[in-house]
């Protein structure tokens, strides 16, 4: 594993972790307000470590939903990691158990940044990017769960726009490739078209089908989203 890539991942993960801290802080606040104990909120972030799934489940139980509905919504939101894991698999060494453990390091931003754009992934950069984000995710939840009453509604502070804005920043580097622009347009269109008709999570999962525009073509070489994001 390249230590240089790992260090570059840590550097790329630092600003991401600031965003993640604020977002997980809002999760801690909302979870305790919904009825989770402080320990439950912290354990959720420490062991689940999946923002979209956590927020989806929380939204369901806060609205009076049961365990099945909450788990179903979380599963839908999280199902995109199936596709991400399949894409990542050839870049991971070792046996099935080791690869399954290393696959736990995948989160949206680190997966996108570690993509070399040719269908392969920089494993060291993936780990480096995820580590600070994990630390800040847990730290933010602890802060929010313990100090929740001081913050009130996180949306009042505009915190809900952090991640979409950040994802656009990651996308900008990718969209320099014409075929990536087509995939993005089609994926966004699929997701928006399905929003009125499907449960939360399904539109994003279905948008993955837009990647089929790449059928029959190998990914371009020389494209490094991580380097371009770092230079942004």
């Amino acid at each position, binding site marked *: 594993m390249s230590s240089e890539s790992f260090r570059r991942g840590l550097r790329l993960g630092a*600003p991401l972790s600031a965003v993640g801290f604020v977002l997980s802080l809002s999760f801690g606040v909302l979870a305790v307000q919904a009825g*989770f104990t402080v320990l*439950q909120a912290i354990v959720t972030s420490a*062991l*689940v470590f*999946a923002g979209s799934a956590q927020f989806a489940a929380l939204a369901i*139980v*806060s609205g009076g939903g049961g*365990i099945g509905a909450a*788990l179903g919504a979380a*599963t839908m939101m999280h199902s995109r990691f*199936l*596709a*991400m894991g*399949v894409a990542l*698999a050839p870049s*991971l060494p*070792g046996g*099935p*158990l080791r*690869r399954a453990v290393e*696959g*736990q390091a*995948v989160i*949206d931003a680190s997966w*996108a940044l570690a*993509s070399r754009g040719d*269908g*392969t992934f920089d494993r060291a950069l993936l780990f480096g990017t995820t580590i600070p984000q994990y630390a800040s995710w847990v730290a933010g939840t602890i802060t929010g769960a313990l100090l929740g009453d001081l913050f009130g509604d996180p949306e009042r502070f*505009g915190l*809900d*726009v*952090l*991640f979409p*804005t*950040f994802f*656009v*920043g990651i996308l900008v580097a990718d969209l320099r490739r014409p*075929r990536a622009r087509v*995939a*993005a347009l*089609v*994926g966004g269109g*699929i997701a*928006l078209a399905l*929003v*009125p008709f499907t449960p*939360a999570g399904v539109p*994003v999962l279905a*948008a*993955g*089908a*837009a990647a089929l*525009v*790449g*059928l*029959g073509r*190998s990914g371009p070489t020389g494209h490094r*989203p991580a380097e371009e994001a770092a230079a*942004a």
Partner: protein
Amino acid sequence: MTLGEGQVWLLIGAMVLMTAGTKAIGPALVGGRPLPRWFSGVSALLAPALLTALVVTAVFADGRRLAVGVDTVAVAVGVVLMMFRVHLVLACVVAVLVAAGLRALG
């Protein structure tokens, strides 16, 4: 919330198994084999497709309704700043301030 403390623990346990399993299946089953050419072309486009879907659903979906709201405007401001090569983190901070400001005014 209608769940008791024990039920919340049950939910957390189920989510841990679900998220860990979801992330493990691909790497464990596909293995360290090189991808076929057609698949590498597809997987290279998964990131832009999924990230775009995450962004548009975050800013336009309100439950099962499509709507333009404060979050849409705030993210748009962040995007414009990035187009003018403003640093990503600064663009995020400005987007948050715009959303907070508009909600304070509204």
